[in-house]
């Protein structure tokens, strides 16, 4: 995909910082100072221990497909041109689960090992995933 994707992300706080990281080709995760627990999606408190002190660490960008669906029906005009597209839940190797899109050449499957790549649009850089064995840029 090139040009504008036409999605307006009105993120605030830590979620805005995560999107800023994506723009730089990073996959930042919040990590709790008290428990060491990685969390996603962004939140001010740790879902494991409630502590509110945290710092950012970049994820390795690798993980496993927890589940997926390939969408054939556009529920919004902006995704009409994407069809079909695959939404995935990726369990990152650091622990958190992330909603993303799967763009690999290999058929998506639960348990498939995947790696992040960054899809750059004029208005947004989106972290997507492909199978680890897929050729780069495929």
């Amino acid at each position, binding site marked *: 995909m090139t040009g504008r994707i*036409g999605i*307006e992300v009105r993120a605030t706080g830590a*979620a805005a910082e995560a999107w800023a990281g994506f723009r730089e080709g990073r996959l930042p995760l919040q990590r709790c100072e008290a428990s060491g627990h990685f969390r996603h999606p962004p939140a001010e408190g740790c*879902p494991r221990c409630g502590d509110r002190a945290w710092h950012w660490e970049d994820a390795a960008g690798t993980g496993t497909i927890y*589940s997926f*669906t390939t*969408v054939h029906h556009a529920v*919004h005009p902006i995704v009409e041109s994407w069809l079909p597209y695959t939404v995935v*839940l990726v369990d990152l190797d650091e622990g958190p689960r992330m909603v993303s899109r799967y763009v690999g050449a290999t058929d998506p499957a*639960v348990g498939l090992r995947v790696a992040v790549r960054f899809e750059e649009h004029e208005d947004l850089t989106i972290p997507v995933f492909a199978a680890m064995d897929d050729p780069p840029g495929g």
Partner: protein
Amino acid sequence: MSAAVAGVAATAFSSESQTSELALAIEAIRGALADAGREPADVDGIVRYTYDSSSAQHLIRELGIPRLRYFSEIPFGGSATCAVVAHAAAAIESGLASCVICFRALNGRSGLRLGRAERHLGRDTLVSEGEMAPGGGVLAAPFGFLAPSHAMAMWAHRYQHLHGLTDEQLRAALGAVAVTQRAYAQRNPRAVTRGRTLSYDEYREGRVICTPLRVFDLCRETDGGVALIVTRADDAPEGVRILAARQHIEPWQEQVPVYSEEISCLTSPGAVAELLDAASCTAADVDVLGVYDGTTVNVMLALEDFGFCGRGEAPDLLAAGEHGPGGRIPTNTSGGLLSEGHVHGLNLVMEAVQQLRGRSPNQVDGARTALVTSRSSSMVLAA
């Protein structure tokens, strides 16, 4: 518990009501009051879904209710299905109210369409904000994760993987839900699909919406209203007793979970045990079941969550037709949200009440106990 559902009513269900949501609410509430043998002047409580466009203030003016002593509301759409009844029953038992309206009225097809996530996204631009997933969440919508059906499709693929089902086995299980509920709907005059039968062959040729779900796996956006009246059981001669009604929320158990530890479990074992203990019953005592069937997947998973069969056994139960007429656990006997219509689950509660009164279009012989679940709220009713 000493509370009961004293009366129920619904408007016609359609794809274009040609009237306002407020008018639908009033029609349903007036009908439920008449069914309960009550007048607007008797009402002192209202419990609403936050998603509803009709406020308690609107309704008391429009219905001629002199004073409310109790009003509350439940978030998260379908999750409110049994929670509105839980709040009403708690108000009755505590003495905060004596006659409580629960209602839901929406133009779900001709107005704001839930299946298109218009509540969150806007119609023309894809704006993503807030935390909600799916919907407008800033870490969900930009990936095309937009509708509840997308999450439910992922529940299905997860379940398929856990239990080693082939595509055909999964399709047969989900298709059994769709085909059976459509058959129930043929006998229900209110059902939006009445007159349109569905065979398994037609089901499996249905258009794929989001794998593995086909068009017949998804509930039907509907215009309509449903209302219930909750009072003390000894004030409800034709009512059904509320043995237990519970709501619960656990981390990542939002209305359509995707971040929870195991997404193919919709109601946790602890929540199920608490409900059944409070009702002093087990799954074996339940004669008729209502499941918030946003998709066919919800029915398959709820059968296991509530112990109607073991983990991984729902496809066999469904293949044997145990959810159908004469089966071990007749489920969504009005046709459900899939085939009667989607009135945000409250029509499933109405059907449970009518079963226990012997007034269902698909009456289960001798039905004494009904269970209704919408994942994070559930209840048990008894004749």
